[in-house]
């Protein structure tokens, strides 16, 4: 029933968009061929057109690679970050992003995060929201199954074991839902952005002529805190905050 509803949903959305899944797959295959032939610009155009209606971590990763090959580091970083958001554990994306970041001028030492936070991140792992959603579904199904058996079964020990199992499964379901929600928030959160212009003066106030606090360069990742008069207040990984003129950022 679930799969039915989901596929129905997919069907509706696909039929509403101009491109079908098959067309997108064709575009991607052609892009991959162009890339392997060294025609990076062509490949990028093909991948981009597929990306208008469809997306996947792998597609975003391919686009990032094209940008990297075309020496457009900020866009490469942007797409790697997007891919990483969908698939945080992807080793290829991480490696390439690391290489792209080495070409960024600004080296910002990140604030040390709490060890609990990183452990948390490790548990959350490289799954995206949908993966956790699926896990939540399975865990939920198993939980109720277990509970039903536990209720139905006569012998006391079997009953006890099954109840314990169902408690664990309940915990698993809850955690999966929590992680899914968390990852979903991360996915839909567009507060992070990459600097696209070669050089940006970050100022103390959202207007031209105010004191320049620091200068950032293309490819640096910032977090947008708020916006005013088309200016964005950004925060760096090291905690510094300043205002940035419009049109120098692209949200991840």
């Amino acid at each position, binding site marked *: 029933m679930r799969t039915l509803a*989901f596929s129905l949903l997919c069907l509706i959305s696909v039929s509403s968009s101009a491109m079908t899944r098959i067309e997108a797959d064709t575009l991607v295959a052609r892009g991959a061929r162009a890339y392997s032939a060294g025609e990076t610009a062509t490949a990028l155009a093909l991948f981009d057109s597929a990306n208008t209606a469809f997306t996947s971590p*792998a597609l975003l990763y391919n686009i990032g690679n094209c940008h990297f090959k075309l020496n457009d580091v900020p866009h490469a970083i942007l797409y790697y970050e997007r891919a990483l958001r969908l698939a945080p554990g992807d080793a290829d994306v991480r*490696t390439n992003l690391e290489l792209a970041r080495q070409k960024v001028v600004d080296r910002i030492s990140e604030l040390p995060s709490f060890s609990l936070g990183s452990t948390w991140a490790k548990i959350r792992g490289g799954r995206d*929201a949908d993966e956790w959603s699926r896990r939540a579904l399975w865990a939920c199904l198993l939980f*109720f199954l277990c509970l*039903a058996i536990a209720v139905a079964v006569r012998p006391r020990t079997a009953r006890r074991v099954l109840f314990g199992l169902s408690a664990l499964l309940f915990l698993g379901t809850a955690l999966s839902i929590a992680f899914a929600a968390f990852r979903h928030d991360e996915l839909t959160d567009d507060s992070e952005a990459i600097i696209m212009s070669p050089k940006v003066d970050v100022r103390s106030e959202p207007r031209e002529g105010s004191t320049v606090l620091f200068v950032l360069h293309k490819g640096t990742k910032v977090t947008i805190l708020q916006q005013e008069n088309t200016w964005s207040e950004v925060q760096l990984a090291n905690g510094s905050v300043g205002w940035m003129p419009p049109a120098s950022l692209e949200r991840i």
Partner: protein
Amino acid sequence: MANLIRTFTAFVLLFIGAQRLSAQEITFTAQVDGNSIAVGEYVKYTISLGNARDRFEAPSFGGLVVVQGPFDNSSFTIINGRMSGSTSRTWVLTATKPGKYIIGAAKVRVGGGIIETEPITIEVAKGAGQQSDPNATQGQSRDPNIFITIGLSQRKAYVGEQIVATYTLYSRYSGLETTKETLPKLDGFWAENVELGDVSWDQQLSTVNGLQYRTAILKRQVLIPQRAGKLRVSNYTMECVVNRSFFNRGTPLEVKSNAVEVTVTELPGNAPSSFKGAVGEMEMQVKADRTQVKANEAIELTVTYAGKGNLKLLEAPDLELPGDLEQYDPKVTDKINVNAGGMSGSRSFQYLVIPRHEGDFLITPLEFTYFDTRSGSYRTIASEPLNLQVSPGDGTAAAVQRPNKTDVQVLGKDIRYIRTGDLELRPTGEHLFGSVAWFAGLGAPALAFVVFLGWRRKREAELLDVAGSRRKHADKVARKRLSDAEIALKSSDRQAFYDALGKALHGFVADKFGLGPAEINAANLRTHYMSYTGGEPVANDYIRLMEACDMARYAPVEDRPRQQLYDEAAALIGRTEQLVRA
């Protein structure tokens, strides 16, 4: 000129003498070589007496100063026993002030009479000629024959304004050898020597108070006062030996100049912030050798200050460059002349600027303020803004010059290859989380569970119902089993009889009290019977009968006839039924 006149006179005398001198005519004339001079210029005054030898008196010079002379000159010729001749006396005169001067008549006694010359008028114009230096006049008062003066281009100056000091030696001695010089102490001045080369006598003589001197500029300095107040340039002292010759050891002398004071005024207090101490008249130029470069290519930015003033004291300007331009310490190039007019020329600062990244960089106008000594006020000039357009570099320079990044080798690595095959495309913006399907997926098992629970409850109710019907039909079942036993009794089948009877007895209580086969024992039965009033004797009878039946069933012992057992069983089932119903 004088020579010409002399020759001419001699020639004339020679020529005319043949006729005239014979007459022994006496002539007495006064001559000047010019009637109008400028102040400081010289005029030669000559009186000549012809054909007589006598003394003549010097006339009054009427304010003119005798610079040289008198020089006497006489010539005599004897031709054919006749003597002819002339005597002349010459003065070199000058005037210190412009005006009209009258040289009085010169007189000579010849024979018994007196001959007078005509008075001569000399016009002295205010001249371009060498006016006596007041310093010189002052210095002269010490020793009229040799002295040194310190001449300053100005006596009042602002802090930082340049003053030219000239040390001049005036001497009337012929030979002069310097043995020791002591330069003046310059307290509060910044001094720069003017390159003069070897000290040599000036070509022209200079006249001070009518006396002629040879002059030599010993030294010239540009002095820049560093603080306000009365600053003193102390004496210039020179030890020398004069009149030394082959025969003469000469006279040692110590010559000391005057000391001078300069009144230095503080600069006005309203100096703009861009004022860094430049005083004079200056211009500024800011130039870049090119404005369109690639990243990591060097640009030479030149700031040039040109003009007159304390150029050598100018410091490098503070360039306010955009943060991304790397700036190196400037190279200073001076083209500064230090001469009698002071310091002039240009000082330029060449900055090596390297843009590290592409982009448009605006170099804001550089402001420069100097103190204009002419107007006595500050003047600020600003350069034109410069716009640098930096295009992306080829990256080679960056790789070499980025100092702190040790990851250069890593840059040689390449990114990993793209993904091929099925990329598991999903429609953009579709998420399983939060979708209807997902919630349905979560809800479905819960719903199924609830359904399951309901079904189970219903079944349990049915199960409960089964127990009730079992109790209800216990009597009927027991009687059917009893009838089985009756058949066995009639056919004298011992085993079948006791089996049927045991089953009837066991089954009846099991159905009646809802007991399992294992739960049927004496104690259980007693408890169940005890819950009814008057159940104990029934229980005892029932247990006794069951024991008897079991005994006969499993052992070959029969203490009572089968008929009696059968009747008793039927009666007990009936009594139990009555007991439960009551």
